[in-house]
């Protein structure tokens, strides 16, 4: 029979607009979070990280916000460019060594020129 694939959440934005990608995490004990960007055929690429003792961290054109109360992360990309088109994953650390990282399903961002 026909197989049905899982559909990633998608976000389309106009070039130059700001993008906001959201992520809900599961483990209230997680204390370190990372956003990754993954382009087709490539491995994930580190974008920005944040520790649980912070609620905001800024990088170059990117900002991560952490709301521990509702276990929510967001990634804001300013002045989105076509090269930002990719799948974005949030990851939380877990496990006995704190070195297991649990990744979310991901959000597919498409930037419209």
């Amino acid at each position, binding site marked *: 029979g026909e197989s049905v*694939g*899982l*559909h*990633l959440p998608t976000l389309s934005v106009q070039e130059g607009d700001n993008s906001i990608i959201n992520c809900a995490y599961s483990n209230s004990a997680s*204390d*370190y979070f990372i956003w990754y960007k993954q382009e087709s*055929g*490539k*491995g*994930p*690429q*580190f974008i920005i*990280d944040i*520790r649980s003792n912070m609620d905001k961290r800024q990088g170059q054109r990117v900002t991560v916000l952490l709301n521990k109360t509702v276990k929510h992360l967001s990634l804001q990309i300013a002045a989105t460019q076509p090269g930002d088109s990719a799948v974005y*994953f949030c*990851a939380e*650390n877990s*496990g*006995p*060594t*704190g*070195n*297991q*990282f*649990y*990744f*979310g*399903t*991901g959000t597919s961002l498409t930037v419209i020129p």
Partner: protein
Amino acid sequence: GAGVSQTPSNKVTEKGKYVELRCDPISGHTALYWYRQSLGQGPEFLIYFQGTGAADDSGLPNDRFFAVRPEGSVSTLKIQRTERGDSAVYLCASSSTGTEGDTQYFGPGTRLTVL
């Protein structure tokens, strides 16, 4: 410098066969990680090496999966009696020390297809 490399880039095998997937981490990185990524999903943790030893192998799905890193550099992920459900992209990452906040650098992955 060179990033994380993985070979082969693609591997097609038949159900029941044995496969080995290789990861060359960034030179000098003591920590090495294996992940599995199915279509439309995020990477799933399999195992973490600190040096030559597996510090956390709790993500390996069953005893058909095994990984080694005998000299603390190159690692091989071994899958016995492959099943169709093993089809996925297998990603390797390395980091300098493995401590929190230490960026993990990913390789391009090996796409495994089990027929």
